[in-house]
């Protein structure tokens, strides 16, 4: 074996070791990147799985219970095994004018069965189910960099919804409750959701 072959051998061996570690790392981190886990380190809270449904760059985890939702995103939060709950969080638009929440639906049924749609925008808020408008107001507007406290309780056929200091109680007959909450932003809107807290009403 000549000198050049020896050098070649050493190079191959070194390159392979580096490649092995590099690619193994890629392999490890390339999986399931369409899912973020919130409340992962808080054992007192339910773990929330945030699925990035239309692209892996549509949301970023800010801290253990906060999420930045980017433009043109559809994100679902799934709380395993919990369908009757109280969820509250701080919501602020970083830019743009509208965020929509969908309740009582799943990935599978999204937009296929009438779900509960809550539009929060710079024109006010609107809660509707299919073509039926359940509540609507233009007194509370969602403008960029304003912080709003959102709280809602899904309790069987009743929904209690709180925006800042405004309480609403809505009856939704024949509604099936699910483990999911969806967020949808338009192409101009980016949103910050902070301090997500969940209480299971069945406990």
């Amino acid at each position, binding site marked *: 074996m000549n000198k050049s072959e020896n050098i070649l051998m050493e190079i191959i061996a070194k390159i392979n070791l580096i490649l092995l570690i590099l*690619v193994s790392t890629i392999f490890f981190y*390339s999986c399931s990147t369409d899912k973020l886990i919130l409340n992962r380190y808080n054992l007192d809270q339910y773990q929330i799985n945030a699925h990035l449904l239309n692209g892996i760059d549509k949301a970023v985890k800010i801290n253990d219970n906060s999420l930045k939702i980017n433009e043109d995103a559809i994100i679902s939060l799934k709380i395993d095994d919990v369908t009757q709950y109280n969820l509250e969080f701080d919501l602020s638009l970083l830019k743009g004018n509208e965020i929509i929440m969908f309740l009582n639906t799943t990935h*599978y049924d999204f937009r296929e069965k009438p779900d509960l749609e809550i539009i929060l925008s710079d024109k006010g808020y609107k809660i509707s189910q299919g073509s039926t408008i359940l509540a609507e107001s233009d007194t509370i507007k969602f403008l960029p960099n304003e912080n709003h406290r959102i709280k809602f309780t899904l309790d*069987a056929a009743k929904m209690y919804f709180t925006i800042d200091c405004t309480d609403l109680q809505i009856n939704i007959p024949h509604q099936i409750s699910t483990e999911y909450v969806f967020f949808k932003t338009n192409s101009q809107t980016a949103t910050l959701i902070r301090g997500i807290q969940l209480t299971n009403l069945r406990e």
Partner: protein
Amino acid sequence: MKIKFLLIFFSVISLLSSGLWGCGSLTREEKDIYTITERDTTYQHFVRNSPVNQNQGTVFPSSREVLSERNSIQRDSTITRYYPDFIRMGVFESIGTIGGNANYGIGTGLFGVFIDQNTSASSRGGSGKIFNGGIYRLGIGEWRLRWFRDAKNWTIGTSIYEALLPDARSEKYLMSTFPIYIRKRYYLREEIPYIAITPAFGFGWFPSQYINLSGSIDVGSIGGLNLRAYIGYAVGYNGSWTPQIANNDYTKKEQTVNFPYIGIGMSMLDFLNRVPETYVEWKDHEHSSWQIGWLGGSLLTSNAQYSSLSDSSKTFIKGFDVEVARTNVVLPILNNSLYAGTSLFKLIVVGDNNWTTSVLPIRVGYWTTILQDELTATPFLEIGYYPNYYFNLGGEFNLRISDMLDVGLKGGFISGEADKFEIFKSDSKTFNYSKFYFGISFRIIDRIFFPKELRYNRKDLPKQPKRYE
């Protein structure tokens, strides 16, 4: 060097297995829980008429009582859906390559499976072979690689074992367990069978260390069958402690290997999903075959004079057969009943010195479902041509015990030649024979499909995954 690699081997295996835990699975499960609330109010009316006449002329209290009960019932409903969780999952791939030293050609033949009959494990090969070497992979898996902002059709994969054989010199064999490959597919055809151009970068690291760059045109999969044309270049190193050198009779020195190659390959039980298919439930996947199986075997009786299993002519069981990687692909004519099939390897023994082996025999037949989800029958004609010629006209009844296990009855007439392959040769004789046979068969990891499962019979397929927009 050896200790270093062993340490890395085990640490990376740990890392890979932790990664595989997250994304290396075959099936992804989605479970949703719905809570259904039912509210019901019941009214019970009781009217107790008085037995005597009442003065109805004035205001008088009615005897009617109304009992109202309000009930609220909540029940959870769980729905589970199953999706494939891989891009490619295969059992066996082989490639016959041109590119090694022409003086040491193995003669692996087309697809790398029609190996020269005079070759042996210790052979140094010879000249005059078209396919000097081969590439072989066992247990192949590929998963979606989501990088470059989720760029399309990238995969990362591995196989349990890979061997790159430039030629017959074993010190030049590049072999690795769990080599790592990154591939990108450019689809030219996005319907079954898919056609794709696939550049790949891979490297093996134990026991050989090598880098393999390749490009291929892939056709498949259909029924787990794939054809591929390759061009590539592998460069690598075998240390003196590697099995290829340590057990070598010709050299004990470490070796470098440069291996440019072109090749034609095939793979069996090798299934490919495009990314959208990983979002379609298993139950809605497209099936193109009547039968796909990993391993089958039969016990046979025949009109041969002596059994291959004993010297007695009174033994009822005269022989057996073994079949590896069988597939019977539907031909979409005549109500989808005709099929064409093959097997990676088949050994049929119907009596003493009445046996034959075959690689990729050609089989055509007519598939009939007798009992839905349970019993099928198929007459078939099978021709083996390498290494032995045989002609097999037969029929089978197959009973599906489960998705993974079938039992059956088979019978037929076989005419062929035995013992032509060097390692099976006995007394340097070649026997021609023609026998009737009958037997009972067992197949494991064998899936029989029924008419309602075939894609040709399902107008609702292909199902598109849900798009979130």
